[in-house]
Structures are given as structure tokens and as C-alpha cells.
């Protein structure tokens, strides 16, 4: 069974190409596109003092890649106006007593006003502003660092996103591919032939999944290599931990694809449902883009049953913190329970009946 499935996969070079290239494409697209780093945030500058010090500070903003000055203002009202027009998301106000206070008290304050209609952008821009302020050599810091940046010193959200992207890709590709395997046989009529033979349901399950497990690992390898060498995400954990957890996740994802495939007898339907049950939970509820602890209570509860959540947590910890299995026992056991349930369901789901 597994041999036949492998042959069939090989005979279909287009699908194989999709299976192997899709992750790469997605890695690039999601890695870059979904980057939460917002560059060139339009900034209005209202420098009331216009001294050497104030210009030094302003230059730090201007020269950073995160902000670009869209307008230089001369009045307080201008800020409101510029924001209303969407010309800027942030405004930096340097007071007229800036240099004097700096000289007298070694502490000065500048005001930063953010357009908070897009909370996400605001938070990020705020973070950047804090970062710039903190690193400004000429001036003492006026705002404290947030502890959230511990494991992401460069303030680069990519390090945070990429491990999540890996989970998304494995889930998407894995479930997609397997969701087609059984439904394809239904559509081509070979399934009727197959179930008229003494083959057992577990032989079908194992035979169908083995080649896809292999593809899953190849994809995982691709993702790992591109994450580390292309995107420069630090990898601090052990390969062993990564292997164990990735195996669990691949089993879960393939099992889900297989379950769908057994239930839905058309390829189109199966792949649509696979997309639905992998894409939505992985991208929205896994904490891959939106932190789980900022979700409403009810959604947080739901996310407990969202399997990618565990893997996203695990991957981040392995990549950024270098955690081992002992640190990660909670999400790992969550994933393991999932894997057991899915495999059990999958092994009982296939019925050798037409009705």
C-alpha cells in the first residue's frame, strides 16, 4: 500500500512539486508578508525647540528604518489634522524646554502621540519608539523597556513569527495532501475495488500515511533550514526535541487530513475542508499572529483545543529559548493526547462499506 502510494505520488510530479515547493513559497510569503515589523511608520515631527539636541533625537527617528517623517509640523493642531488625514500614525512632540531640562535635571520628556485606530500597529510602533529612545546615546531614556522583548532582543518580530509559520505550513500542506488520498480513490472508482479486497482498515491508514509522513519531514527540514539560514532566526534548542515534537504534530495533521478524506468523498470538498480546519485555527487561534493571552476569555478557552497552538508554543520555545522536552511537558502532552485521539479516530473511521 505504502509502496503503491509512493509510486503514485512520484508519478504525479506536479503534485509532488506543489507538496515540496508550496512550503517554501509559503515560508517566504508568510515570513515576509505576515511580518509584524511595520517599517516606515509615517511620523509627524513637531519640534518646538529646534535645537541641536532636539534635532539629534529627531534624526534618530528619521534614520531608523521603522519611521519616516511624513510631515514637519509647526503647531499642536497640525497633529490632529495630519492624523485625521491619515498622513501619519505617530507624532513626536519635542517640547521647547527640552534642552534646558536635559541640562538641568538630566531628565527630559518628549511626547509621542499614536493613532490608535490600529492597535496592533500602534503597539508595534510604540515598541519601536521605545527602542529608539532607549538607544539614543545623547539622551537618557524616558520610557522603560517592556519585558516582552526578552527573547527577541532585536525587536524583530520575525523571530517570533517564523516558528509559527512553520506550524502553519506543516498543518496546511500535511492536511491538504492527505485529505486527497482517500477521496481521490473514491473519485476515480478505485476505492470500490480496494474495499472489495481483504485489505484491513489499518493497512489502508498506515499505507496511505507513510509516504506523507516522509513528505512532512522533508517539508519540516526545508522550513527549518530556511528559517535559520534565510531568515536568520536563532535556533537554540535541540534537534531531538524538535524531531519528537514535529513527529507528533505531523501525525496529528496527517490524521486530520485522513479523517476528512474518509468522510468527504470528493477531492475538492476534502481539500476545502482541510483548508478550513487547518488554516483558520492555525493562523487565527494558535497564537501565531495574535497572542493568545490577549484574546477574550471564551476564545482563549477554545484555543485550548486548537492543536497548532501547542506546536506554535513548542516551536517558539525550542527556537528562541532552547527549551527541552522537560520544560515543554505541558504543550507536548497536549499534542500527544491529540495525536493519540486522532490516530484512534482515523483507524476506526475507514469503513469498508459503500453505505
Amino acid at each position: 500500500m505504502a509502496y503503491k502510494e509512493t509510486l503514485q505520488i512520484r508519478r504525479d510530479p506536479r503534485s509532488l512539486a506543489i507538496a515540496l515547493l508550496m512550503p517554501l513559497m509559503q515560508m517566504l510569503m508568510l515570513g515576509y508578508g505576515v511580518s509584524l515589523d511595520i517599517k516606515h511608520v509615517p511620523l509627524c515631527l513637531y519640534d518646538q525647540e529646534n535645537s541641536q539636541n532636539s534635532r539629534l533625537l529627531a534624526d534618530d527617528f528619521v534614520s531608523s528604518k521603522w519611521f519616516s517623517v511624513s510631515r514637519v509640523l509647526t503647531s499642536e493642531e497640525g497633529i490632529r489634522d495630519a492624523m485625521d488625514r491619515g498622513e501619519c500614525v505617530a507624532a513626536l512632540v519635542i517640547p521647547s524646554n527640552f534642552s534646558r531640562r536635559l541640562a538641568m535635571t538630566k531628565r527630559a520628556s518628549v511626547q509621542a502621540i499614536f493613532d490608535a485606530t490600529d492597535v496592533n500597529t500602534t503597539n508595534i510602533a510604540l515598541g519601536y519608539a521605545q527602542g529608539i529612545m532607549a538607544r539614543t546615546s545623547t539622551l537618557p531614556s524616558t520610557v522603560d523597556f517592556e519585558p516582552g522583548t526578552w527573547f527577541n532582543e532585536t525587536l524583530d518580530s520575525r523571530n517570533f513569527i517564523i516558528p509559527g509559520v512553520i506550524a502553519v505550513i506543516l498543518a496546511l500542506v500535511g492536511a491538504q495532501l492527505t485529505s486527497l488520498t482517500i477521496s481521490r480513490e473514491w473519485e476515480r472508482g478505485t476505492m470500490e475495488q480496494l474495499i472489495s479486497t481483504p485489505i484491513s482498515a489499518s493497512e489502508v491508514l498506515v499505507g496511505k500515511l507513510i509516504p506523507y509522513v516522509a513528505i512532512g519531514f522533508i517539508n519540516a527540514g526545508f522550513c527549518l533550514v530556511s528559517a535559520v539560514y534565510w531568515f536568520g532566526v536563532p535556533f537554540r534548542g535541540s534537534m531531538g526535541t524538535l524531531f519528537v515534537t514535529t513527529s507528533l504534530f505531523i501525525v496529528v495533521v496527517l490524521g486530520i487530513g485522513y479523517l476528512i478524506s474518509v468522510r468527504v468523498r470528493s477531492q475538492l470538498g476534502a481539500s476545502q475542508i482541510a483548508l478550513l480546519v487547518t488554516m483558520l485555527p492555525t493562523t487565527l487561534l494558535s497564537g501565531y499572529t495574535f497572542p493568545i493571552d490577549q484574546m477574550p476569555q471564551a476564545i482563549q478557552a477554545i484555543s485550548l483545543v486548537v492543536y497548532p497552538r501547542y506546536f506554535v508554543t513548542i516551536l517558539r520555545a525550542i527556537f528562541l529559548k532552547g527549551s527541552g522536552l522537560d520544560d515543554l511537558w505541558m504543550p507536548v502532552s497536549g499534542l500527544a493526547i491529540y495525536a493519540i485521539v486522532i490516530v484512534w479516530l482515523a483507524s476506526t473511521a475507514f469503513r469498508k462499506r459503500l453505505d
Partner: protein
Amino acid sequence: MSGESKAIVAQGLSKRFQSFLAVDNLDLEIAKGEVVGFIGPNGAGKSTTLRMLCGLLRPSSGKAHVAGYDVEKDPEAVREHIGYMSQKFSLYNDLTVRENLRFFGGIYRVPKKEFAGRMNFAVSMAGLEGREDMLVHTLAGGWKQRLALGCAILHRPPILFLDEPTSGVEPEARRRFWDLIHDLASDGVTILVSTHYMDEAEYCNRIALINRGRLVAMGSPGELRLRDLGGKLVEIACSPLGAAVNALAGSVIEAAIFGDRLHAVLDPNGPDGEEIRKLLEEKGMNVGAIRMVSPSLEDVFVRLVSGGKEERVLS
């Protein structure tokens, strides 16, 4: 358990799909080594019956034993003793001849030692020597069909279910296919084969005629031909045929288009040949020769099927 000599026994077998009764109280007894043709129009319930006998569909009611095993309680045992060729062409098109055979050999659990021999047999039976490494989708229909049969008999099943194996295959390939069926039957294999080609019925030991889920008649082709049609059968050359069928309704027991002629079963108490001619000519039709013919299977078939219809209307 059913009798030793019976390969297939069905009692009161029925299958209901929601409100549609696909198979209605079917009784069937097929002895070992028989070739039985399952004949009936599309939607008559042939495929459904075959699927139930293979254990692929659960009967709504009734019982069936195949090779002595209950199809409902022990479908796995049934599957080890049958070969099944489904209606839809069902080899893997993207695999080669050899790979298909190897795959089916594997899932039918053909012992490794015997596999090479059986594969060679299947290949030569299908006439595919030298084409073992061709992809199946490049083969012509007749070859595919014979290969599918080859795959279905790799494990030497004593019973074969073939669901319209020859549909869409050219006549020469059909004839070759039936030669294969007879070769297998002479080795003692029981074969239940459905078809809608009337000429193929003549190749069978017995015919089971099925219409609207019911077994209408069962017997050898000779027996069925002897069936009383209820009157003499005449062949009428006339035109237009369609209008003539309508014109004769009520005057004869049965009228049906048969190629470019009309076949009519005369009512012993109704008009005879010459009166029929008058009747048709009065309606402005051209009537040529009218002659008595001996009924073919198709005549019997048409008669039995339409008889079934009347029963339905009455009940």
C-alpha cells in the same frame, strides 16, 4: 450455512435507499462453476445486488451467503473468496501494468512464492506480454478490462462478480473477454456477470433477468426462449415505426421496435396478421412483409419487463 454445492445464495435480499427500493426481495441460487448473466435495464438494481453480495453494501433486509459466508456478518471472509470488478474502471491509471498487479497481489495477500507465476498468468491472459511496464492509462479499453479481470483473479477466488465488465469495449474485445470468462468457468470458478448487452446473455449458463429491483425470470437462454409470450410473434416491416407501435397499442399483447422492424405478440383473441396490416394501412402507414418469427431472448426480455410494469400499475 447454505448447501455445499451453492456458491451464491440470496433470500429475500432487499436494498432501500431512502424512499427508493433498489432491490426488492431478490432470491437467487447459483451453483458452483456456473456462469450466470445478470441482465436488466440501467437502474434495475444489478450493481446494487452485486455490491451487496460483495459485502460493500449492507442489505436492508434479507440474507445472502457467498461461498458459504454471510455477507452481512462476515464480509471479510466473503472478500477473501471473491474477485470483484466494479462498473467504473478501477485500476490505477498512473501505475504500470506490473505495478497494478503487484499492488493487488499485495492486498489480496498472494504468497510471494506464487506471485510471479500468477502475475505471468494474468499478463498472458490479458494479452499484455511485453507491455508490463506501460502505464495503464495508455492502454486501450479492451486491454484495461482484461487487466482488471487479471487483477481480480490474482488470488484465485472461487467466485467472481463482474459488474458490466464489457461496457464501452469494442465487440472483438468483448468476445475475447467472454472467452476468458469461460476459461475461468471451466476451471470451476463461479461467475456472476452483469451486462446490458443482450447478445452476451447467450454466453451464460443461466440468465437472471432483473427489472426494477425484482428478479423477473431465471433460467438458461434456451429455457427462457421457450417462455410463452402469450401469443404468436410476428415481425412487421413498416414505417414509421414509432407511430405503428402507438397504433397497435391495445390490439396486440405487445409491440416493440426491433432494429428496423416491429415485433408484435399477437393476442390469440385479437386481430391476426392480415387484420394488423389493414389496421396499420388505414392509419396511413406503409406496411411490408409480416411474418412469423421464433422469439429471441430480447423478445422474451421485452415481454417480461413490460409484464412487470403492468403488475406494478395494478398493485
